[in-house]
């Protein structure tokens, strides 16, 4: 097990390196640069700017320097947000995304899994029907529509919350609710379908015929196997949800990380693109490692090494 984890950490670092390299060169292949301006900056000023950010050096020199900086956890200065380093940018906005994201995640898991279990056990009954209709609505309604509807009801009609500027926890509920819609629906469907498969199996019949209570059979015996696809999905989901969503942040005025993902690419803000991508990638890779280790614990038949 320990050997497996070491090997995985090593390959994860390798993955990060490949991601950095790929993103670095792909990004530079995109036409336009961070200081391309429609108004046209005079050439001598442009030369000064490029010199200051050392963008005049050959690409491989810049690449080598960037790698060296990343090794020392220095993601460089932002080209667009003046006077800010990418480290500060992430440090400022990640806690916000983390707060909204973990609330959304808790909601998605806390509602999604029980809903999936109940609808699998009461298959075809009204509980199943209503849970699945809700789940279908959860994916069919685009999140910008959900967001707009929530703003209309809770902020405009009822006036319970203010929207548009960030005040911490009280303003985090609506974005979290919006963000949780899709994963909640997906998790409940996933739980339902794999639960349906598991409860047909012989060992479940054995457990029932031993005289165990339904609750014990479902939560101790069945859920353990049925939860596996959900756990697998949790890796990418958590990474995605914790790094924020562009649309939700735009509608609710949440100063999270998601906006940088989009705006930095449109702005060709090279260091911010790189920094945010590396951050996301590191999160994703480590969460997937965590997921694989958890899978091994939950189902000992899954042999990892």
């Amino acid at each position, binding site marked *: 097990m320990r050997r497996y984890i070491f*090997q*995985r950490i090593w*390959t*994860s670092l*390798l*993955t990060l390196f*490949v*991601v950095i390299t*790929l*993103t670095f060169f*792909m*990004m530079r*292949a*995109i*036409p336009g640069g961070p200081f391309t301006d429609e108004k046209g900056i005079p050439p001598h000023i442009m030369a000064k700017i490029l010199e200051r950010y050392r963008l005049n050096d050959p690409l491989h020199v810049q690449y080598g320097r960037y790698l060296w900086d990343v090794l020392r956890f220095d993601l460089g200065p932002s080209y667009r947000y003046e006077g800010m380093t990418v480290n500060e940018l992430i440090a400022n906005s990640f806690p916000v995304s983390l707060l909204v994201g973990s609330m959304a995640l808790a909601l998605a898991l806390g509602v999604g899994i029980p809903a999936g279990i109940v609808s699998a056990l009461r298959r075809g009954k009204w509980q199943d029907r209503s849970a699945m209709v809700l789940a*279908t*609505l959860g*994916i*069919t*309604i*685009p*999140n*910008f*529509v959900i967001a*707009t509807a929530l703003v*209309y009801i809770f902020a405009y009609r009822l006036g319970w919350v203010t929207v548009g500027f960030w005040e911490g926890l009280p303003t985090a509920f609506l974005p979290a609710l919006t963000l949780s819609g*899709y994963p909640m629906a*997906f998790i409940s*469907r*996933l739980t339902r*379908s*794999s639960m*349906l*498969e598991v409860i*047909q199996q012989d060992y479940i019949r054995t457990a029932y015929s031993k005289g165990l209570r339904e609750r014990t059979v479902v939560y101790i015996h069945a859920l353990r*196997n049925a939860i*596996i*696809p959900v*756990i*697998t999905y949790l*890796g*990418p989901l958590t990474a995605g949800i914790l790094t924020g969503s*562009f*649309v939700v942040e735009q509608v609710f005025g949440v100063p999270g990380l998601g906006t940088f*993902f*989009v705006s930095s*690419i*449109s702005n060709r803000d090279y260091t911010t*693109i790189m920094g*945010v991508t590396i951050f*996301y*990638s590191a999160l*994703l*890779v480590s969460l*997937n490692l965590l997921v694989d280790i958890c899978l091994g614990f939950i*189902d000992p*038949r*899954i*042999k990892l*090494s």
Partner: protein
Amino acid sequence: MAPTENVRPDLNDPTLFEPVSETEKRSADYIRPSMSYWQDAWRRLRSDKLALLGLLVILLVFALALLGPWFSAWTYDAQNFMEANEPPSWNHLFGTDMFGRDLFVRVLYGARISLAVGLVASFINLTIGVIYGGVSGFVGGRLDNFMMRVVDTIHSVPLMIYVILLMVVVGPGLKSIFLTLGISYWASMARIVRSEVMRLRNEEFILAARVLGASGWRILLRHLIPNAMGPILVTLTFSIPQAIFAEAFLSFVGLGVSAPMASWGVLSNDAIGTLGIYPWQLFFPAMAISVTILAFNFLGDGLRDALDPRLRK
């Protein structure tokens, strides 16, 4: 003690065997007509009313998207400021938008784009995603580690970078969106199939298939993947709307289809600002998305039951 060689009979000795009688032969015959996996699945799908309804709606939406615009008096890009923002009427079934364009025709045209995106996404998920994840989970070990890190890498590079780069290479428009979907849209499917295959590959029925001499590909395609059909179809029915929304998002930031062409996502996006005044402009495109996705869900549920080998009768 008797000599032990008598315990094992000589199988070449013809006196030890006698031919099977006719009645005994018949007892081993199958009474049920032999049916392939897919024949059986189709037979079960046919009896599922909700799934058939889903299939019917999908076919209808396709037919409308392909043929509908021919039968309409309006075109998707003709502007008429005298009729801007009109509510639904017999003249304009879904009303008009802020430029006076007929919303019904625009929704029909949007269907072409959104359905194409959804179809491409599901095709990629079913081919690349399922096979990639299946091989990774089935072979395991080093290859699995390598293949999954490739998925991590692909998943890590922001979607927009692919799109912008592909736009530079193949030109703007739908082609670059399709290619982007092809590059990056099978990651979660591959992960889910992998974990299902890892769970199933040590079960007895796989051992049985192995003992019978089935090849690796046969075990993967005929035994492992059919047993993972539930999660696969759920992931699939969810990846179609996700792809449709991804296209909407890309168009929203200016990287998708360009005006006056519009997909369902773009139409809904455009209508949000004026939701309070002209609600039908959002209602109809959102309705189109919802009905189509609902139909895909019904069909997906029916397929799940029809393809599950354990429910075979």
